[in-house]
């Protein structure tokens, strides 16, 4: 089970390579590792090592479990005006305490330095996951979660590591907006007892700036009881929480601190608007109050000549999750209709007001009409109501009812698992989605036993698919029990289960007071959310810059993300994510600096089963483009470079030059491709099972399938290609031929040496040729499963099946 977890969460460094997608790439800027024969830094008392800040290193796991991801240095890549994190792990041989001190980071080609006052050191706190609710096979044990400021950890002796366990320091680096781009070096000094050990830090700062104000909307809820746990119910403490989350690029659902009257809310909105908050959450459960807030906001916006209205979003909690209700008759439709009438009446009032008869006034009125009305539900179009636990939505007359196009239907990630499902949410209203104790693996969540890559990926997905808003029910829930009987947890830090059936669900910070912190203590999950939200801004910038050139960045963004997620299904781990992020920074730098390079596509070509790739790019005038050191020439303004997969590792490596400005970009295409053409002898397939005769017809061997035609009859394949399948295999494609005139149902089984036989795929074969794509090996649980011994194809309803060539990507 533990090893299973490592396969999924740490996503082994040598994980799969795949076609036209970013994969872990040993030549990328990943720093040293134990794999390159450099020893982990050690003393008599402990081992000191590092790992990417997208990895969760459990206190209770053996350090050797992380051998594939352990490093002896910290390597960071960053835009400007953003935070990046690193981590140091101390594995204790005997009980010990440790601290970490960071140096300035010095530019390698100038005297410029990013001073250490931009950096913070936190000691990780650990929470005991007693049950893996998320369902990804991760082990139970002590997970890192809280980021306790180091000085508080020292005071409260929380920087202690027990013998045989891991203790972590989380390092937060803020890269100022005016930082020089380029490479930096510095060090982290780890003090254990009287001994000091240095760990090198390298940082690459791209010539890219993250905007200070987020464009992503967020409505993250909070539980008022946290102020009791902070032993401070003052307005100042409430403001500290709102500001804290704002610093993490998250807007709390309700920022109000001075009362729930509309006038107070608008004044609080104005206060936080000036501080750069992205979202102003409507408060109130009566439409009269909602109306007063929106009108007040419009008038305040007119007064200050800044559009606050476009930041408003309304999550009507009284119709939360209708799909869970037993009876929705008239309730949801009534609320939605009430919203429509309210907005129309507000618009009518403002249109009748001569002070709004200006260009800006009209803009405000238009913004009122676009305010997101966020209903947490799945689209009926996507699910055909199948996903509902109880009844379909009905209007007041009991007739089936569907959301009108002005409602932001806010689904959970499991509602975005395919393009077809996603389409149902694009109704013209602002796109939102949300997360809570559900979904589970393989969808991205904020749960503790899910990975930090997931917690980043939620924001990436939003950027890629134009989801504007992110809703999360609670960030500060530290109670146990329910309803009137809920009580405060004595130690919220060590208990991740708020009895919602998901570890970490309902909280993203811890109350700080019990450890002397004046305000909340962040979690590494919240830190990852900020990372993701910063990347969200970069994705938006990339899209904007491409759009300004009449281009679309969608294809190239998808090429970055397809190794992280497939629609909303998580498939990649840290290496894929770190590599994709590096490319994102490069692409944004290419598009936003004077070199002005726009990589519009990386196309796959298939010639007789052999793949090659063509990168296409355009540049601004005056920019020269080089590939593998060779200057390229544009044809009709488009540069084109083609590569095949003949090497063990295959890349596009570009350099753009404009005057003195040089920007490099490389894109990993994947490992070597193997093509097994249709063999001259059938025996080469090494087939057994339900076959009693064969004949070669064109590119296929036609097999007579034995057995009862209404049963699934199984054909076992032990071809050489099957023995090549490994965790590096991104795709395994087998060509089959359906000789009939109707669809044939099939099942694919994989037999593993340890785990045995599993059903891996089902589907139908269309009449004629079919390519069967098996792309799950890279994310399979190899430690649990063992090696692949055989593939089986079981078909029903046919007595003929053809088998042709086999292609494998990544061996």
């Amino acid at each position, binding site marked *: 089970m533990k090893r299973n977890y490592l396969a999924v969460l740490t996503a082994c460094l040598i994980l799969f390579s795949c076609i036209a997608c970013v994969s872990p790439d040993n030549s990328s800027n990943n720093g040293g590792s134990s794999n390159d024969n450099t020893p982990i830094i050690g003393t008599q008392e402990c081992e000191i090592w590092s790992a990417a800040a997208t990895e969760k290193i459990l206190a209770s796991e053996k350090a050797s479990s992380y051998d594939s991801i352990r490093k002896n240095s910290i390597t960071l890549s960053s835009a400007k005006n953003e935070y990046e994190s690193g981590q140091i792990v101390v594995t204790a041989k005997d009980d010990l305490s440790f601290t970490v001190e960071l140096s300035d980071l010095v530019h390698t080609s100038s005297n410029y330095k990013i001073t250490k006052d931009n950096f913070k050191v936190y000691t990780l706190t650990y929470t005991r996951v007693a049950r893996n609710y998320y369902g990804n096979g991760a082990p139970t044990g002590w997970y890192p979660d809280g980021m306790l400021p180091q000085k508080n950890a020292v005071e409260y002796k929380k920087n202690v590591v027990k013998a045989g366990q891991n203790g972590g320091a989380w390092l937060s680096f803020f890269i100022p907006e005016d930082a020089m781009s380029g490479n930096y070096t510095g060090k982290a000094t780890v003090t254990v007892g009287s001994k000091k050990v240095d760990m090198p830090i390298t940082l690459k700062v791209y010539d890219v700036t993250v905007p200070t104000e987020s464009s992503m909307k967020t409505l993250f809820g909070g539980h008022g009881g946290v102020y009791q746990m902070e032993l*401070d119910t003052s307005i100042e403490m409430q403001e500290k929480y709102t500001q804290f989350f704002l610093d993490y690029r998250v807007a709390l659902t309700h920022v109000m601190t001075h009362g*729930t009257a509309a006038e107070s809310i608008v004044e609080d909105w104005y206060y936080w608007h000036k501080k750069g908050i992205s979202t102003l959450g409507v408060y109130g459960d009566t439409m009269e109050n909602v109306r007063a807030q929106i009108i007040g906001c419009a008038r305040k916006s007119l007064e200050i000549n800044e559009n606050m209205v476009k930041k408003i979003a309304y999550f009507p909690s009284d119709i939360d999750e209708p799909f869970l209700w037993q009876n929705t008759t008239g309730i949801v439709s009534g609320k939605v209709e009430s919203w429509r009438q309210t907005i129309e009446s507000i618009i009518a009032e403002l249109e009748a007001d001569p002070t709004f008869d200006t260009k800006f006034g009209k803009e405000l009125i238009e913004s009122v009409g676009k305010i997101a009305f966020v209903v947490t539900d799945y689209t009926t179009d996507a699910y055909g109501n199948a996903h509902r636990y109880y009844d379909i939505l009905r209007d007041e007359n009991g007739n089936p009812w569907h959301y009108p196009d002005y409602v932001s239907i806010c689904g959970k990630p499991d509602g975005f698992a395919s393009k077809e499902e996603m389409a149902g949410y694009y109704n013209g209203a602002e796109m939102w989605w949300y997360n809570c104790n559900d979904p589970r693996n393989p969808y991205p969540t904020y749960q503790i036993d899910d990975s930090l890559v997931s917690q980043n990926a939620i924001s990436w997905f939003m950027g890629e698919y134009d989801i504007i808003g992110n809703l999360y029910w609670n960030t500060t829930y530290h109670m146990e029990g329910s309803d009137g009987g809920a009580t405060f947890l004595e130690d919220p830090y060590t208990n991740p289960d708020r009895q919602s059936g998901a570890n970490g669900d309902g909280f993203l910070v811890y109350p700080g007071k019990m450890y002397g912190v004046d305000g909340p203590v962040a979690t590494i999950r919240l830190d990852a959310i900020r990372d993701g939200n910063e990347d969200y801004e970069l994705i938006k910038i990339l899209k904007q810059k491409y759009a300004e050139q009449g281009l679309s960045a969608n294809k190239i963004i998808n090429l970055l993300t397809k190794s992280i997620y497939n629609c909303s299904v998580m498939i990649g781990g840290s290496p894929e994510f770190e590599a994709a992020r590096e490319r994102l920074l490069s692409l944004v730098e290419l598009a936003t600096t004077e070199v002005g390079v726009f990589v519009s596509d990386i196309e796959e070509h298939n010639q007789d089963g052999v793949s090659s790739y063509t990168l296409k790019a355009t540049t601004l005038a005056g920019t020269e483009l080089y590939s593998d050191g060779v200057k390229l020439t544009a044809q009709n303004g488009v540069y084109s470079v083609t590569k095949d997969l003949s090497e063990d590792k295959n890349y596009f490596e570009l350099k753009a030059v404009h005057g003195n400005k040089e920007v490099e970009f490389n894109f990993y295409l994947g490992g070597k491709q193997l093509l097994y053409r249709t063999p001259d002898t059938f025996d080469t397939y090494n087939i057994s099972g339900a076959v009693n005769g064969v004949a070669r017809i064109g590119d296929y061997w036609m097999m007579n399938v034995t057995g009862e035609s209404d049963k699934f009859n199984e054909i076992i394949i032990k071809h050489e290609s099957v023995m090549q399948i490994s965790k590096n295999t991104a795709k395994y494609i087998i060509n089959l031929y359906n000789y009939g005139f109707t669809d044939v149902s099939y099942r694919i089984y994989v037999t593993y040496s340890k785990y045995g036989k599993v059903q891996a795929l089902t589907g139908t074969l269309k009449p004629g040729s079919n390519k069967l794509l098996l792309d799950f090996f890279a994310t399979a649980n190899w430690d649990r499963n063992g090696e692949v011994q055989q593939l089986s194809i079981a078909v029903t309803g046919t007595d003929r099946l053809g088998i042709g060539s086999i292609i494998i990507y990544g061996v």
Partner: protein
Amino acid sequence: MKKKILSLILALFTSFTCALVACNSPEEKVEDTTTNAVEEVKPLYTFEEGLFNVRMAMWFGDIQLNKDPKYVFKGEKSIKLSPTNQLSTPYMYLPLQSNLLGFSYTEILKIKSYKLAVYAEENVTIGLGLYFDKRADYRGPEQKYTLGAGWNEITYYPQYAIMDMQYTVTDCKGLYIMFYEQEVMPVVYLDDVNIVLSETTLSPEKLMVLKRTDTYFEICDFENAYQHLMTITQTGLAKAPSVGIVDAKDYGITAPSGSRVLRVELFDKEGATNSYSWTKWGFVPALIEEINFGQFKGHLDEYVLKFETYRDFELTGAVYENLVEINAYYNGYGVQDWAGATIIEKGVWQTDAIPLNTFANFVDSQYSFWLSFIERGGSGSRVYYFDNFRIEKI
């Protein structure tokens, strides 16, 4: 028996206010002269580990760890309590169990007294008492202490017999400290909280007496002063309701029976509009236990819960904002049944009757019983009167 109850009540309302002489020498120990029994002092909260497990009510104000030696009674740390007079009575509480601090005192009736040190800058009155659920919503009557300037060493002797009329004493979860509303709220420092254990287990005397016939089961007729102990209050965002037994004629009304009734005054929710929150008063769990709703199981259709109500103000706002809801909590404090709602008439006594079969869950696992009111802003104070809660055979 009645004399005994009255004397206890008298003690509760009069002599429980203790004036303490300022004790500026932390080393000086207060001798317990009330008994010669062997006793053992156990530290509860020294605050040397920090603020672990220190709890406070919503809107209490602020509690900080203090390291200024001037305000430390023993060791190196104490805590600074800065209550506010926002909305509701500020109180903080200290559980008798803590995993982080490593103690668990569950033999409540072995705790003879609580000793603690409180520093005040000037004279201030505080209350000490015990609470009986994890959130300290259910609290026993407090004992008042008037503190002098400087360090005050307090020994609090819980009146278990009184508390037994309200709660199951062995359910006690800890000690609470409350502050009384005043224009400028005091700041005090708390340190060195100990419990004094007795060798023997105390046994509180049973004092509650309820009138019963074959067809009539008293819940509370409010004719006796001690019945004030039968009521408790909670609040949402407004000040807690003021609840007291009064002579009806003092308020120009005639009691439906006897002379005394329960007067309930609800206060404005300041600055807040249009959001639901509730204030409420209820009957204590011990009274509910004494009534024993379980005795009606199997015959619920034959009984009805009745009480008289009277409203002394004009209604404003929507109808639903003036509803009085009846809620029965069962299965500990975790679950509630909504037993009904009523609009109380103005200027006349109205009898409300709720069939006992409405409480089907409650009779199996009774806990407490509440009347709840939506908190309102801008409506002024609202006064209701209640009398003669009872169960009658139909």
